[in-house]
């Protein structure tokens, strides 16, 4: 790839050229090269993977961002997008020779169009801020990851994030209508449109959940949902996860789709209690947080059914939030649970796997077995309604071997999910962490097909390389045939695993 004419090429390395270009394009404080500062960006929410990036840029406009990507393409420098850095799969883990493109200054809510039920936002806008901006008009943004107070919409799009209320309302992908997108060649394109569906291939659909491997989203049009007429939040205590699981199955089987059904086991309750004093039922082996929303008459009818079903399956305590404050406190316990585990264990791994809901009791028992056999504690928090488990594997890194033991348990849990016909990730993404698990879930042909799509967007593989795919193969290579070494591989330019 040729160098552009306007850049001095006298002996400067590609990185130096990029830095010079970044300084021309961005305000001074938007270009970070100082080592101590660079290091604060070396990890995301999965802090045990760390790589110091060669350069960090914080653009203030989509044009600046596109200019940086263009220069990366010219200079063949890998880049990684980063929003709020809360990802739990190492998705925004930097590249040592690459640039980290941070969207935290692209945070304007450009429009809230009440009548169209749309908001147009920049990628660095915090998820909860979209809701805050639209509630005065009677609307909100439905996908609500537990990290909603901090994670960015760009990160949500990249991870196709979900949350407690996605059971009823769907994941990010169901709420994104259009996006401005910077391709790996630095071109600014528009995907999707205002209409609910666009003809032709669903390119927007491909970008949602692509974890930054296809390019960087610079503007997102999201759907806003009408605030429900009535919301009822219940906190239900059971003496075991088996009973709580039975209640979940009974509720769904009765044809009720609650806005959310979340389960926490005893250890997770202990952590949340220590963090936010949420006052969950004493001595509970499991709690369910159940939320019903919609038109008042419908909610009232469902409420009566849910109460009855919980009692029939053995609930020993049932509380209904009477005030908005009580509702917030019930949710606070659930939403702080991950980070709160820091209170009961020095280190932990947040796992994310999916199983068919019906397999819940069985898988939970198997996890308990695994935990007992290995002596590694596991706290369970999950979106029970759609079978998305978040086991928290606790360990103390200061104890030799504890980290490895925890890793083994964590991997074992994923295997359990796969054995039961589930998936290796529900919402946290594959990132750097689970790339190695992809072949367990997909055949080589499936992965090859995904690679073809990736190559169509990013032929040089500079957009978040090394994530998602276990075998980052070359785009020129014909899928399915791995014979001998590729010439580039022989030349040491690229690797084929």
């Amino acid at each position, binding site marked *: 790839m040729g160098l552009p004419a306007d850049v001095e090429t006298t002996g400067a390395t590609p990185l130096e050229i990029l830095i010079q270009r970044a300084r021309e394009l961005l305000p001074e404080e938007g270009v970070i090269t100082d080592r101590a500062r660079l290091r604060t960006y070396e990890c995301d929410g999965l802090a045990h993977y760390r790589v110091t990036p060669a350069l960090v840029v914080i653009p203030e406009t989509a044009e600046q961002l596109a200019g940086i990507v263009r220069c990366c393409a010219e200079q063949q420098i890998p880049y990684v997008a980063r929003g*709020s850095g809360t990802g739990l799969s190492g998705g925004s883990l930097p590249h040592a020779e690459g640039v980290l493109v941070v969207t935290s*200054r692209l945070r304007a809510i450009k429009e809230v169009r009440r009548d169209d039920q749309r908001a147009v936002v920049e990628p660095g806008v915090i998820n909860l801020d979209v809701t805050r901006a639209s509630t005065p008009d009677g609307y909100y943004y439905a996908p609500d990851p537990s990290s909603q107070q901090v994670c960015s919409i760009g990160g949500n799009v990249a991870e196709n994030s979900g949350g407690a209320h996605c059971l009823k309302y769907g994941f990010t992908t169901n709420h994104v209508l259009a996006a401005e997108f910077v391709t790996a060649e630095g071109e600014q394109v528009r995907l999707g449109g205002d209409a609910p569906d666009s003809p032709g291939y669903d390119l927007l659909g491909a970008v949602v959940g692509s974890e930054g491997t296809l390019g960087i989203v610079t503007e997102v049009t999201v759907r806003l949902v009408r605030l429900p007429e009535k919301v009822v939040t219940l906190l239900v205590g059971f003496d075991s996860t088996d009973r709580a699981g039975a209640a979940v199955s009974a509720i769904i089987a009765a044809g009720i789709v609650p806005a959310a059904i979340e389960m926490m086991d005893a250890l997770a309750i202990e952590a949340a209690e220590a963090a936010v004093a949420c006052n969950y039922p004493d001595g509970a082996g499991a709690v369910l947080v159940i939320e019903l929303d919609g038109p008042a008459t419908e909610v009232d009818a469902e409420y009566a059914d849910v109460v009855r079903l919980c009692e029939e399956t053995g609930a020993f305590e049932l509380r209904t939030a009477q005030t908005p404050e009580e509702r917030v406190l019930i949710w606070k316990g659930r939403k702080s649970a991950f980070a709160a585990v820091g*209170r009961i264990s020095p280190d932990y791994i947040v796992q994310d796997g999916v199983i068919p809901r019906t397999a819940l009791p069985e898988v939970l028992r198997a996890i308990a077995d695994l935990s007992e056999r290995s002596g590694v504690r596991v706290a369970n928090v999950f979106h029970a309604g759609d079978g998305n488990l978040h086991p928290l594997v606790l360990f103390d890194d200061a104890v030799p071997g504890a980290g490895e033991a925890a890793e083994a348990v964590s991997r074992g849990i994923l295997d359990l999910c796969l054995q039961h016909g589930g998936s290796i990730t529900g919402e946290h993404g594959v990132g750097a962490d689970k790339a190695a698990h992809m072949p367990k879930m997909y055949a080589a042909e499936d992965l090859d097909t995904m690679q073809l799509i990736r190559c169509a967007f990013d032929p040089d593989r500079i957009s978040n390389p090394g994530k998602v795919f276990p075998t980052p193969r070359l785009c020129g290579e014909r899928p399915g045939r791995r014979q001998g070494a590729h010439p580039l591989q022989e030349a040491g330019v690229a690797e084929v695993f």
Partner: protein
Amino acid sequence: MTDMDIRQMGAFDEHHPPDSDLLGDCVHCGFCLPTCPTYVLWGEEMDSPRGRLYLMKEGLEGEPMSDSMVQHWDSCLGCMSCVTACPSGVRYDTLIEQTRAQVERNHRRTPKEKALRALIFSIFPHPKRLRAMRGPLKLLQRTGLDRRLRSTGLLDRMAPHLAAMERLAPTITDADPLPELMPAVGERRASVGMLTGCVQGAFFPGVNAATARVLAAEGCDVVIPPSQGCCGALSVHNGREEEAQTYARRIIDTFEDAGVDHIVINAAGCGSTLKDYARLLADDPAYAAKAEAFEAKVRDIAEILDELGPVAERHPLDLTIAYHDACHLAHAQGVRSQPRALLRGIPGVELREIAEGEICCGSAGIYNILNPEPARELGERKARNIVATGAEVLVTANPGCLLQVASSIAAQGHRLGMAHLVEVLDASISGSSPEELRTRTI
């Protein structure tokens, strides 16, 4: 390992480096980011709590103390909003104080920075000198500032701050000195010692007088030792550990002699420091135990009034009030519900919440003098949110906050009454008209 080895290994020396166990509590979840005022302003990891903690960790891991590290720690307002937000219980307050003391010892500041800091610390913790500054511009001009000082830009930076103080406290007719004892009205329910504070004492003597009256009305014998000195808050927040310890010992001695049940403070910034004396003096065998006993007695005025429960009659005040959480009260001491409950206890008062209530107003001790730009931006943001409530009176519990938002509100061309919580209670108990509070504008 020798002192030198450690210093060569990283940013910190061996005298209380940031505690690695406490740092280990940070799980890097980022929940603290959106409540951090500097992150809200600049959107950079290094100027977020998570980033500042990471810089500490880098320092422990062997990175030398660089100018950039210090710059990011310096720009922390110490508002402790991150402590409230953190689900993992990270003690950022302790960690940043440990770090600041290290910075003061191990980082070479430029002569200009040094001069600015030296001047501030020769004025602020000294009530008398501070009072003398009330005619600040005149004074600064008359004392024949030499050119070096002028080059620090101090005059420019202090001027708005002091000018605001002046405007805000127009009634400072060297208020009658407080008596050493104000006896309880009616049945005696407690004996309390009252701290008068530096800025509070110098610029808002009315607040101290109101505090004493309200306490007495609620059945407290109020002991007010005359020469108390500074509590050391500014010194602690700026890494001047030894200076802070000296102040703390003096305060402890003073109040030990007074023999009271509780020690009451009406300035949030001082309160959070008083409640941390045990840690400040932990290494001093002569004072460690005394400091613990002292700390256990300290109460913010809102806490003590809430604990005691009202006995004095509240007369109605027809007022809409916006209550502003001072960071050092809400975040550092967790006092949020008590002031609101006390205000709601006054018939006629309508309380309004301020949007983005958890974000600092930019005052933060002397932060607004050392970092005028971000302080101004935060002040403007806060002022907009306050004005949007449409309330008639702004109530808070910290003198610095009042000074800070007063000038921003005025700059935006709005008028709002401003009062300390106790002044509102005092007005209600004494049955005075709400008009006075409503018109106490700047």
